[in-house]
Every structure is written in structure tokens, then in C-alpha cells.
């Protein structure tokens, strides 16, 4: 694949405030819809990504990538960008005969990473989304789809002090600006420490 096609929406923009905001490189993302109760569906996910179906609002991560719960009939599969084609093919083959949908959405999304002190990262997010970001309510392994100010977004915390955010590519600049302004030095809240 040529270099031009691998360009992300903001070419890896970053900003440093009391929390660092950066756009991550191309991330393989596959939307997978189907019947979670069907044994064939779970088996297909296991076969293609090596992970069991995540529980409600959870994201599970393994060697082959991550699988996130998006709705009662939708998963988001995260794999390396260059593995997307192969994973889609594997899923399609494993889902033969199932009522399911596999779609490569890698280039339709933008992917951000916030890093800093855990409390500060939570404060930055709490300014933007109507979600309880206390460590007890939103910890490692949890994922939420919600809104970031005026646009839809999904986010999870892969480790302490890090938040990863996915939004639609068309609103990448807006989301980056939102996160940057929210993380600007002088805007510390100190609510989560």
C-alpha cells in the first residue's frame, strides 16, 4: 500500500498541555455485527482474533488485537492496520452461513491517545463527555460510546494515565481541538486528582 493511503486524518498531530494529546497512526478497525447468542458468531471471533466475546461495555485485548463491545449486536475489532484485509477475510470465512456483517472501517475513523497523570486525563475527558470517569466507574477494560461535546466518540483506558479515543474521521480536527483545549495548561480541574 502506498504511503499516501496510510495518511491519517491529521498526519499525527499532537499537543502538550497538562495532558498530552496525540493522534495515533493508522489503526485497523473492523465493524462486526451479528447475533452474539449464536455459537458460530463467538467461534468466528475466537478464530479470527483469538479472543472471546467481550461482556457488555467491555473491551478485551490479546496478542491478535482487541475486541470492543459497541452494542448488543455490534463489536469493534482492532487489529494492526496491515492485518485488516487478512482479518476481514478470516472473519468472512468463519462466518459463512451466519447472518453477520464484517466491514473495514479503518479509514473512516480517527484515533487519539491522551496521556498524563491518571486524574488529569480523567478530568480532560470529564469536561467533554456526560460519563462518570471515576476510576471505580470507568476502569481498565471498560469502554463507553458517548459524545464528546457535539460529536459521537468511543473511549477506553488501556492503562492508568492513558485514554484512547475513537471518532469519525470527518470530525477528527474538531475532536483534536476539543481534546487539546480541554487539556490546555491552566485548565486543570483537579477533580480526579
Amino acid at each position, binding site marked *: 500500500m502506498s504511503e499516501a493511503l496510510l495518511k491519517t486524518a491529521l498526519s499525527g498531530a499532537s499537543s502538550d498541555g497538562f495532558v498530552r494529546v496525540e493522534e495515533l497512526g493508522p489503526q485497523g478497525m473492523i465493524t462486526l455485527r451479528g447475533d452474539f447468542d449464536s455459537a458460530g458468531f463467538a467461534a468466528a471471533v475466537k478464530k479470527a482474533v483469538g479472543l472471546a466475546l467481550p461482556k457488555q*461495555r467491555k473491551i478485551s485485548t490479546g496478542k491478535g488485537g482487541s475486541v470492543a463491545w459497541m452494542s448488543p449486536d455490534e463489536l469493534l475489532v482492532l487489529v494492526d492496520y496491515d492485518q485488516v484485509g487478512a482479518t476481514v477475510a478470516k472473519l468472512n470465512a468463519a462466518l459463512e452461513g451466519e447472518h453477520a456483517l464484517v466491514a473495514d472501517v479503518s479509514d473512516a475513523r480517527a484515533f487519539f491517545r491522551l496521556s498524563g497523570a491518571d486524574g488529569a486525563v480523567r478530568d480532560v475527558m470529564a469536561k467533554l463527555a456526560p460519563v462518570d470517569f471515576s476510576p471505580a466507574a470507568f476502569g481498565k477494560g471498560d469502554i463507553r460510546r458517548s459524545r464528546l461535546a457535539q460529536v459521537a466518540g468511543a473511549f477506553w483506558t488501556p492503562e492508568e494515565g492513558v485514554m484512547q479515543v475513537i471518532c469519525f474521521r470527518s470530525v477528527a480536527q474538531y475532536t483534536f481541538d476539543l481534546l487539546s483545549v480541554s487539556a490546555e495548561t491552566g485548565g486543570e480541574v483537579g477533580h480526579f486528582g
Partner: protein
Amino acid sequence: MLILHCPYCGVDAEETELHAGGEAHLKRFGPGSSDEEFEGYLFHRENPKGVHFERWRHVNGCGKWFHAARCTNTLEVFGTYSAQVFEPPQELQDKISAKRPGWEWRDLKGSDQ
């Protein structure tokens, strides 16, 4: 601020994450129906002061539609339930009867307790 529990993703979502979808349990009258039925389907809506049933969509979330029962007067939320039903579950109706004895909504009637 209205906070509704989404029965599909289990989130207590606040109003800004949701989208209101109007009155619940409408029966569609399309081609072949009488003018009165069609008019009723299109235009006649409940406007209660008290118990009301509505459709909501968890638009900034799991994207699913669900039903909510609430009081338009006090904004108290009695509960939310699946979209795949034709009327509120009996359990929820009983719960409303306990709080608003004798409530009525369209052809639904709560008990007087």
C-alpha cells in the same frame, strides 16, 4: 436533566446522549385504512399531565431504540423497557399504579391499589 437507563447497554444515560422519539406504542395505519384512522395515526397524540410513555433512542451510545415511562409533571422516571413490545410490561404498570393510583393513558388503566 432527564436520566434514563438504557435497557440495551445498561448505561444510565443523560438526556444529551439520547434522542426523543415521540409517543410510544403507536399503531400504524397506512394504505387501506380509513381517513379517520390515518388522521389519528398521523396527528392525534396524547398530551398528558402525568404518566406518559415515550420512545427514546440512545443515539450517542449503542444506537438502540427503547421505551420509557415517566411523569410529565414531576419528570419522575418510572422505568425503561425493551422496544420489542406492544405495551408496557405489567410489572412496570404495577409500579406506576403504586405511585400514581388510578393513572390512565390511552386505553391503559392502572389499578387504584
